[in-house]
């Protein structure tokens, strides 16, 4: 209402431009207008202020501080001491455990990505049809995704106990029991099993909704073309799902790089350093060893990995719908 009044007044004045005594009034009007414009521009800043403050304080600043810290030696109590690239030297040249952590993280990620995608693909195609049993199986598979990784890890530690159920089952089939989490050759596999078991239902769900968005008539056309099931899977289903599959590849990789909970609960990075992963390394160096500089440097390495993946991720979002 007021804005229109102001505009009307302005118009009125425009017609009386030549009258000099109006000029000062016009200036006043403009000033008032300017003030209102500032006020009018304020709300979005006020509305975003708390959120922005939070992100700046708890995300942006800590990240910058971490990068800075990675060039210092610090135990959390005394003054920070500049060491240049010393911490990175420590990571890559002096101690071997960071390289182990890096390698383990990569092994874990590759394994989880591969098996999650594989099983999610198989299950989503297998449970595709709308039926009661299928939706039941979908739900049952999905539930672990809701549970804390901690809860799942605790249960699996028990199942994988040397006196646990898994070994009892193996024994039943006259297969010698495994040492699961207590053996450096099987510990990583065990951690991967848990991650895959927990994530499968969720990933299958994502693929299922992607499958449902593919027009049914394409599959019908394939049927009319006398396409054998396997050929249909490889030549039609997978290519049509490829955008979603690639998207999943990125998100699973992102999450796998951050693995911590299961390792902490099930193996504590052991036995030996067989399940030592990046975040566990950071955690240990910060919490136990009080070598914050080293932990920060390791954090920077993780940050770089995450950045690369995130850039790909956001590029992808724009190009989601390949076909149609």
């Amino acid at each position, binding site marked *: 209402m007021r804005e229109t009044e102001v505009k009307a007044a302005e118009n009125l004045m425009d017609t009386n431009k030549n009258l000099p005594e109006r000029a000062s009034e016009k200036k006043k009007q403009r000033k008032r207008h300017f003030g209102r414009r500032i006020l009018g521009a304020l709300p979005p800043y006020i509305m975003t202020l708390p959120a922005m403050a939070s992100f700046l304080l708890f995300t942006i600043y800590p990240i910058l501080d971490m990068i800075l810290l990675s060039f210092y030696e610090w135990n959390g109590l005394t003054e920070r001491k500049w060491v240049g690239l010393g911490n990175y030297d420590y990571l890559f040249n002096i101690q071997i455990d960071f390289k182990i952590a890096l390698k383990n993280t990569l092994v874990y990620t590759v394994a989880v990505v591969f098996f999650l995608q594989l099983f999610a693909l198989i299950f989503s195609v297998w449970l595709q049809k709308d039926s009661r049993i299928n939706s039941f199986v979908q739900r049952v598979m999905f539930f672990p995704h809701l549970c804390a990784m901690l809860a799942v890890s605790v249960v699996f530690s028990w199942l994988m106990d040397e006196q646990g159920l898994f070994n009892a089952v193996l024994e039943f089939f006259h297969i010698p029991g495994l040492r699961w989490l207590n053996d450096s050759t099987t510990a990583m596999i065990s951690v991967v099993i848990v991650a895959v078991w927990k994530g499968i239902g969720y990933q299958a769900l994502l693929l299922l909704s992607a499958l449902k968005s593919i027009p049914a008539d394409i599959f019908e056309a394939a049927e*009319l073309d006398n396409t054998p099931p396997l050929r249909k899977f490889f030549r039609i289903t997978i290519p049509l799902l490829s955008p979603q599959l690639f998207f999943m590849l990125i998100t699973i990789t992102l999450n796998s790089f951050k693995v911590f909970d299961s390792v902490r609960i099930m193996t504590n990075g052991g036995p030996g350093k067989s399940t030592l992963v990046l975040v566990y390394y950071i955690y240990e160096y910060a919490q136990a060893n009080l070598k914050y500089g080293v932990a920060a440097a390791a954090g920077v390495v993780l940050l770089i990995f995450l950045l690369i993946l995130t850039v790909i991720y956001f590029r992808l979002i724009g190009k989601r719908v390949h076909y149609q």
Partner: protein
Amino acid sequence: MGEIILKNINKTFGNTKVLEDLNLKINDGEFAVLVGASGCGKTTLLRIIAGIGPATSGELFIDGEEVSDLAPGKRNIAMVFQNYAIYPNMTVKGNIEFGLKNNHVPKAERERLIAEVAESVGLTEYLKRKPNALSGGQRQRVALARAMVKNPKVFLMDEPLSNLDAKLRVAMRSELIELHNKLKTTFVYVTHDQVEAMSMADTIILMNKGVIQQQASPEVIYDDPNNVFTAQFIGTPSMNILPLKNGSFVGYRPEKVGLTPEETEAFYKVRGRIITREMLGSETLYKVQIISGEHQNETVMVKSLDSGFQEGQDAWVQVALKHLYFFDGKEQRIREADRAEDYGACVRCLKGEEA
């Protein structure tokens, strides 16, 4: 070659019956058009023939063979989908070739067939393109080529022209007719557009609520409809249907009405007043309110070559006896040939001789 027989077909989705005890025969080499409003079961019927939405019960014969438990790919049929359903990840050539590869056609033979079919639908220069680089009309041709290359006994088409613009649709229509004349294969074509049905079909199969209303050539279905539904579905504007005192109905087509300022010697004549007037070009469409006789205040549509009548003007609405259709209380047609007594009663009723 491609005769199709359906016997006692039932189809239910959950608890709803879509088709009940349906029987149908489509002759070899015929261009059969399944037509009806959306939800009438025509697409369901087509999908039963294709095998991608099998019947709940009943028998289906293609070329004399019972095929209802045969996979769609083994039925020697081809289908063109409404949205074309071409494989977006394959080139045009890949799309056409896919079915041949599945059927283990040798490479040299495949190349020959693809070249031939691409030539005939005008896709030769697009063979290496991906579908998303094609126009709607071109995609339609890919779908057609993919069907043709299999040399099937039966072509099934599910509203294949509905996604094209009006001009292209008319052009494709005549191309399809030509294609049918050339191939002489059975075509089963589904559409909701009665004009499309009339212009393309050898046989029209008109469906309503899962029941076949009439199966006949376009001429017969227009001139000799079986029931009120058929009479009103075919032809625009639809047939005028008016109730008679004896519980029957009389009907006449707007284009068979003589609209004159003076009374003539026609069998059926009533006074009417022009309510609206629509100039269509060669003809003019009038909405007329009847102002005399037992149908007073009813409105009828009249299509006339005479564009001279104005809104508000009075005129005579007149129809010859041979252009009048009578229907009984169940909306079934009363023909003079087989229900002479009922026919006579209706004629007398219309004349006002008997109540």
